[in-house]
């Protein structure tokens, strides 16, 4: 796989910036002008996790034409798997000092750990679940949906239904995932104090590492013959079928891969923000993730990362300086970007590539003509 300069620049910037920030946070005294406060470290870590979600969305939307309005569900599931591990790590340091049960279970009068919580005390198992849970859900959902050739808006709407159903399910206290409050008050990860600046810095660097890894993986996938077929499926699905390809298999593979990437993003997100709760499943979150990609530039991968960071930075900034007006700013940004920057911010800097999706979304119209 050959990397162009934009890709190299992205990797260098993401990983380099994370490394520099972490190093400055660790090695300079707080009074120093070069010191990066922990607040910034935590924020940057959060942005990078969102960038992973955006990357996952771009992979399916930009290259396979699947507009998922439920991708935050996979992100949240990964987050919950990590959250469960972190809850088990608390051990008897919880408020009630109960070594076996998380606080919220004691609180609700539960007597023993539900079966599906077993195993999460082991980091390895939990990490396996971070990958497996979103992956398996995506596989089942995708297998059903792609096999029946559910496409376009219909697919978007049922992905939304999926995340909405999960939202309602996780809200239920009876489910044993902490209900509305979710999981919080984490103490340690792999034995390291989760609130320590060093842990935060390490988590930031790890997030950067994973983001770069995912970026490279995504580049590999879209650059391979598989990726070319994926683009072919996106634009002219029926043609690929008459050539003997099974679009459903291609979509399923990239869909599951994307779900796993989102899940890993969620897993890294939770220790850095310190809470996971059902509102992560809210359909609005998934729509926002799509907007990050649109702002950055759909079908470019680099744009997804850039969009996630830009929009979230904007959100952090606006909610502080314009607390009463920031929704106008954010809403206006979305409208303006779709109207005037159909190819996103990256489109400003970049010559048009044929491999990027047409802003006009020609996918189905071509297919329609074919059948005519």
């Amino acid at each position, binding site marked *: 796989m050959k990397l162009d300069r934009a890709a190299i620049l992205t990797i260098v910037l993401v990983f380099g910036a994370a490394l520099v920030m972490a190093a400055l946070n660790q090695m300079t005294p707080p009074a120093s002008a070069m010191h990066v406060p922990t607040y910034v470290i935590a924020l940057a870590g959060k942005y990078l996790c969102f960038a992973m979600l955006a990357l996952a969305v771009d992979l399916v939307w930009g290259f396979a034409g699947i507009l998922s309005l439920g991708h935050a569900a996979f992100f949240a599931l990964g987050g919950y798997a990590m959250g469960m591990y972190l809850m088990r790590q608390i051990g008897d340091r919880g408020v009630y000092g109960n070594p076996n049960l998380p606080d919220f279970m004691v609180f609700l009068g539960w007597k023993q750990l539900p079966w599906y919580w077993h195993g999460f005390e082991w980091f390895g198992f939990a990490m396996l679940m971070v990958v497996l849970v979103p992956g398996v859900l995506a596989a089942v959902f995708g297998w059903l949906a792609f096999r029946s050739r559910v496409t376009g808006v219909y697919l978007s709407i049922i992905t939304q239904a999926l995340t909405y159903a999960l939202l309602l399910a996780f809200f239920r206290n009876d489910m044993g995932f902490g209900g509305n409050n979710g999981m919080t008050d984490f103490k340690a990860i792999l034995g390291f104090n989760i609130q320590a600046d060093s842990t935060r810095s390490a988590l930031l660097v790890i997030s950067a590492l994973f983001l770069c890894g995912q970026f490279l993986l995504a580049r590999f996938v879209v650059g391979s013959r598989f990726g070319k077929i994926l683009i072919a499926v996106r634009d002219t699905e*029926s*043609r690929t079928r008459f050539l003997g*390809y099974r679009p459903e298999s291609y979509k399923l*593979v990239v869909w599951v891969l994307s779900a796993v990437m989102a899940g890993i993003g969620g897993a890294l997100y939770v220790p850095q923000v310190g809470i996971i709760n059902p509102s992560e499943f809210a359909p609005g979150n998934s729509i926002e993730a799509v907007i990050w990609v649109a702002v950055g530039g759909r079908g470019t991968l680099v744009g997804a990362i850039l969009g996630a960071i830009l929009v979230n930075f904007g959100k952090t900034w606006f909610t502080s300086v314009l607390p009463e007006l920031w929704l106008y700013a954010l809403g206006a940004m979305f409208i303006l970007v779709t109207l005037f920057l159909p190819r996103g911010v990256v489109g400003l800097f970049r010559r048009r590539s044929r491999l990027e999706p047409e802003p006009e979304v020609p996918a189905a119209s071509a297919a329609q003509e074919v059948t005519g």
Partner: protein
Amino acid sequence: MSEGDTLLYLDGVTVTFDGFRALNALSLVLEQGEMRAVIGPNGAGKTTMMDVITGKTRPDTGKVMFGKDTDLTRLDEPAIASLGIGRKFQKPTVFEPHTVWDNLLLALAGDRAPRFTLFARQTADEKRRIEQILETTRLTDVRHRAAADLSHGQKQWLEIGMLLAQEPQLLLVDEPVAGMTDAETEQTAVLLREINRTRSVVVVEHDMAFVRALDVKVTVLNEGSVLAEGPIDLVSDDPKVIEVYLGR
């Protein structure tokens, strides 16, 4: 001709859309290595017939046999394509964002499974085959251009090239010369005859001059069933045919 030489056999195929009979007990036999032209007025069921053969549409009744013992009605499009039936659409349908080269690469016969394509590298053999097809379809000069940038005729050829790359036993070609210049039309006829040396071909076409140029057995469809069949001169003299089609 013996049974063994039959490549495609449609028997009593009926397709109904919302009460409209697109195909009405259609029967058709295609021999191995044959080229057949199918003509008929609009709505005669030409495209629906293609759809049935390629698995896009499932017939209400009837049999579609490919080779000795493969029932096509039980298979879906990719499976049928893998058996060796290629289809060219009325409107040229190629992968516009990809280069001519990549279009052919994706069409080349080979493993279609994601686990293969994910790690596939272009082999010397593939390169050779692509170059050969580029030669045949006269697209060598534009091989690195995106398909979207090709002229209409070039796109038609590219699509035919992609069919060739699939190495099918049977090609279904829907109006290959629509919108082509006379010169291009002529070249296309030559190309099809060349292809027919190794493969069976079904051509659906309106252009009578082109059909005449192909000089093959003609099947005339009307209202979903066969109206007449035979050499072009015989068919064009048939009063029924003249009434519904030629003489309109």
